[in-house]
C-alpha cells in the first residue's frame, strides 16, 4: 500500500446561482476594483488515500467526489 495525495475541486455548474461568487463580486467596488467580473467560488478538498496503485486510489476519490463532495445536480468536480 502506498499513500497517494489528491486534490478534488468542486465548482457550481454554469447557470446555477453562485451566491459566494456574487457576494464577492458585489464587494469588489469597496476595494476600488471595477475590472473584475465572472467570479465563481468553489470548494477544494485535499486528501490522502492508501491504495495499491494510483489508479485504485483515484477510483476511491472519484467515488467520493461524485457521491459526497459534490451534488451532481448543481456542481461539477475534477480530481487532480
Amino acid at each position: 500500500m502506498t499513500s497517494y495525495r489528491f486534490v478534488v475541486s468542486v465548482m457550481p455548474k454554469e447557470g446555477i446561482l453562485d451566491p459566494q461568487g456574487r457576494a464577492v463580486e458585489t464587494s469588489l467596488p469597496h476595494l476600488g476594483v471595477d475590472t473584475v467580473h465572472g467570479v465563481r467560488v468553489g470548494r477544494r478538498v485535499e486528501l490522502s488515500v492508501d491504495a495499491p496503485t494510483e489508479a485504485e486510489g483515484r477510483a476511491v476519490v472519484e467515488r467520493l467526489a461524485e457521491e459526497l463532495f459534490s451534488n451532481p445536480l448543481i456542481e461539477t468536480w475534477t480530481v487532480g
Partner: protein
Amino acid sequence: MKVGVVVFPGSNCDRDALHVARLAGAEAVPLWHEDPDVAGADLVILPGGFAYGDYLRAGVLARFSPVMRAVSAHAAAGGLVMGICNGFQVIAEAGLVPGALLCNASLRFEHGWVRLSVERRDTPFTAAIPEGRTLRMPIAHGEGCYYLPGPALDSLEAERGVLFRYASPEGNPNGSARDIAGVISPDGRVCGLMPHPERAAEAILGSDDGMLVFRSIVESVGASTVGAGR
C-alpha cells in the same frame, strides 16, 4: 399511530416535532442518528436544524448516517417520511425527493412568516386541509431555494410532485423555482418542505395551520390501519 423523529447532531426542531406529533394524537419517539432502524414508526420526521453542522453542503453528511439507511428502507417499503427545512435538505441529498436546495437568492438567511398554497389534497400530508385554505407558517433558512433543471421541473409538475407553493401576500422568500415550498415523491409517501408546520401548530404561537398537516397524517394512517384490519 407512531411517529419517529430523527435526532442528528445539530438538529434543533426535534423536540417541537415530537411535541406537535403528540398533540395531534400520535405516539412519538426520538430516533438517534446512529440507530439501525426506525423503531416501527409509521411516519419518520427529519426535523429542522443544522445536521452535522451543515458542513460541506446542507444535509449531505446526515444523508450517510446509519439511521438514513433505515429511513430509505422505510420509504422504499411505502412508509411515510416528512423532511422539514434541514430535513428537506437531507432527503433531497438522499434522493428520496427530487431537487436540490440552493442558497437563498437574497444571499441572506431568511426568516419570517410565509403563506402557502396547497397544490394537492389527495396526499397523507394534506388530506385534512380544507379546500381553498392557504397555510401560514414560519420559515428560517439560508439554503431554501428549490432547484431542478428546466426539463426535470416540467416532469415534476406533470407528475404532480409540487405539494406547496409560496403565495401572496408575503410571496417567495428564497427565489425557489416556480415558488416551490414543498414537494412530494412520485408514490406520494415522502414529503419535503422548507416552512415549519411544527412551529405553527398552536394558536398562541401565531398560527395553528401546521396542525392541519399533522392531523392529515394521523387521520390518513388511522384510516389505512383500519382499512388493513390491524
